[in-house]
């Protein structure tokens, strides 16, 4: 059965969906922008948020950058570094960012902002080789970061499922009580308000953590370090603390860390980077941790203070025990040792 209808009606029924789609598209883009939800340029949600933060907070003076994965976001306080040194620092750590992607990010941001030094917090058991999360050309990122990307194009990098998921997990992302928090302070730090009492027990115990052989695992680190030092910028590899006993109880992981610790000095020497091993300078009590590897807010401040003291004293620091009284002891019957 074929029905004949007037041409005008068809014209409107052709233009109608296009107009409705356009209006909704603009509205959703505007609302997401107003809520400061980052467009999806990469497959790493944390990195997208970081790129948005960088776009909105571009320093013009030479800046020290905290780069890396979640350890960078959570464990080092750029605001404390800035307050105590009087120099500008920003934190650009992004959850799950691999070392090679950190290098990619560094290459990108060194074109956007005047970098002075890079501090790269790391755990040696984290050096894995991941596939890159960058899926758009650098020129696109540049247009975005420089604010030259039109609104409609920016909206084309939004995803309806991602937006719904974001809204459903709003609290986790926008409060400092979730491990996936992107509640940045003015310097980009993500201080975690999680202590032994409020943590996730499986994360606290590092369930499922296994060792793996180092197949060229130092290579991305050396490449990153070299790309920084070749521009005569300072590169500091900060080996962050982890909960005492967690790694030691996992034989495969212990061997992995030992092997990497053996390879590290040679690797850093090759690229002219500096290594600060916090585990050799201090013992961080359980109260400073949000889980087995990430520090909470007070822990991050203490680690940053340790870094500042180390630099001030030229490395001649007495071994110290660090506790974080604000977070007290935990319900898992683990006390500060």
């Amino acid at each position: 059965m074929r029905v004949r209808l007037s041409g005008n009606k068809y014209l409107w029924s052709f233009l109608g969906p296009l107009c409705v789609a356009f209006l909704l598209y603009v509205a959703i883009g505007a609302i997401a922008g107003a809520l400061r939800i980052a467009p999806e340029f990469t497959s790493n949600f944390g990195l997208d948020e970081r790129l948005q933060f960088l776009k909105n907070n571009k320093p013009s003076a030479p800046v020290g950058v905290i780069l890396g994965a979640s350890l960078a976001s959570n464990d080092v306080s750029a605001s404390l570094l800035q307050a105590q040194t009087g120099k500008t620092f920003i934190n650009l750590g992004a959850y799950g960012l691999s070392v090679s992607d950190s290098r990619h990010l560094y290459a990108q941001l060194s074109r956007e902002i005047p970098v002075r030094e890079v501090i790269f917090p790391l755990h040696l058991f984290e050096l894995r080789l991941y596939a890159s999360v960058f899926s758009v050309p650098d020129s696109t990122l540049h247009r975005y970061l420089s604010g030259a990307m039109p609104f409609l194009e920016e909206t084309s990098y939004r995803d309806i499922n991602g937006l719904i998921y974001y809204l459903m997990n709003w609290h986790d992302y926008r409060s400092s009580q979730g491990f996936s928090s992107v509640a940045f302070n003015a310097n980009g730090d993500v201080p975690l308000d999680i202590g032994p009492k409020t943590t996730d027990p499986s994360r606290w115990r590092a369930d499922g953590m296994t060792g793996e052989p180092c197949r060229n695992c130092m290579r991305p680190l050396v490449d990153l370090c070299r790309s920084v030092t070749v521009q005569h910028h300072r590169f500091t590899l900060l080996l962050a603390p982890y909960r005492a006993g967690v790694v030691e109880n996992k034989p495969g992981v212990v061997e992995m860390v030992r092997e990497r610790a053996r390879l590290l000095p040679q690797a850093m020497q090759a690229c002219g980077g500096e290594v600060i091993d916090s585990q050799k300078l201090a013992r961080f009590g359980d109260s400073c941790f949000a889980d087995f590897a990430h520090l909470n807010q007070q822990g991050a401040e203490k680690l940053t203070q340790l870094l500042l003291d180390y630099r001030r004293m030229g490395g001649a620091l007495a071994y110290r025990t660090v506790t974080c009284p604000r977070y007290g002891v935990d319900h898992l019957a683990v006390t500060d040792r």
Partner: protein
Amino acid sequence: MLFNSFVFLFAFLPLALLGYAIAGRVGERAAVTWLAICSLAFYGFWNTSFLILLTGSILFNYAVGTTVGRLPDGRRKSLLFAFGVVANVLLLVCYKYLDPTVSFLQDYGLIIDQTRLNIVLPLGISFFTFTQIGYLVDRRDHVGENLDFLRYVVFVTFFPHLIAGPILHIRDIGPQLLKRDTFRVAADRVAPGLALFILGLSKKVLIADPLGEPVAAAFTQAQTTGLIPAWVGAVSFALQLYFDFSGYSDMAMGLAHIFGFRFPINFASPYKTRGIIELWQHWHITLSRYLGLLLYNPLAMRITRWRISRGKKINRKALATPAAFLSMVALPTFYTMTIAGIWHGAGLQFIVFGLLNGTCLTINHAWRVFGPQSEHQPGWAANAGLVAFNLLTWSLALVFFHAVDFQQAEQMLCAMFGANGLALPPYLGAALAHLDAAGRWLNVHATVGHGATTIHGMIRLILTLAIVWGLPNTQQLMAEKSPSIEAVNDPAPAWMQWRPDWKWSVFLGALLCADLLSFRQTSVFLYFQF
């Protein structure tokens, strides 16, 4: 260039349509030329070097087809026709099967030289080769119109169907290519064409693509996945393939109609069918029709003639004897489905996919011939059971279709039959595990980490099945102003039918917006690899 990309929607399509509207006013020839240029540009966007192959194939087939059409019936004509078909098949074999075959022989030490050929499969090669073999057959049999070269180029390369069908016959599209009215851009074609395009696009990006998550979870961990996630993965794949491919077909049909053409229907609610014969009659209809015409029917005819020459009967009563059934039904079915399986890919798993379908079709035919001949129609519960059973059987066969190799398919089937336990989500698993004896017998264990994927997958599966079984298909929704060649016999209720009003505009606009905001997650169409 994907249909589900910004470059296609906001650059290629408007430019192509605008140029077509202008060319249409200039004249028929200008419009055909413009369509040919646009279609070749569309293909060249993927890889310009393959344009040479496509153009060569078109020139060759047009020359052979035209000559075959002119020659009188006889040996010369048959030889030239056979040469044309063999050349096409060889082209397909070279690009599609040579690399996997050599790799297979290298892996098993039958070829010492370990250098891989690394032949890149040109996009849509199966589709444009099949279309042209069909053209040669039609020319031989003097079926359909005799097209000039430019129209022939459009017949083969018209961008909506070039990459993944539907497979067109000259008698479908030939008369339209010769009609002046076709080359006119009109709102009463663009509006329903756009509506069908948006519905198809939504099927792809809003339904098919998200189903990929439980599918990937089940297949990539086939060695350890439990019974429930394995079935969720397998059935999800059946649904993903349907929405992906039928979405593509809808988009192709919608686009063709925007440019004034009508395509044949390619899908007609295959998952509402009650048997595998019916399913194949509603699934990728143009391929089924093609396989029937080129493979099944010629063999069945030969067998029939052979039986007649031997003085054997060929009527319905004779068919009910095992020997006649085997020769007249089972043999052509297995032959056709095995080749259909091989067409889908070079791995052993595709042959098994074809054989499995052949087996199911033969059993279904046997049931019709040898089973109880009752006039009684089954009740709704029996119907629902048959529909569900049909989908599960089909999902089982599709495991071979989706698996990367035979081993993965085997692992997946083992998982689907409980070799890795039930694998319930953590809280359910823990509760059942308390029933110790039963738990041990069932090999119940709770999944760690994949529970959420399974639960999300199950919810998504149920919602998708509700759409499949509870709603009319897109052709039924568009029935009143169907952009298809055939009229739709069982339209959706009047209140659900597409019509040019504000309600449909808002609905389609919202769908289009959601589609555009899903392009970040979209992938290529599953059938592109064939």
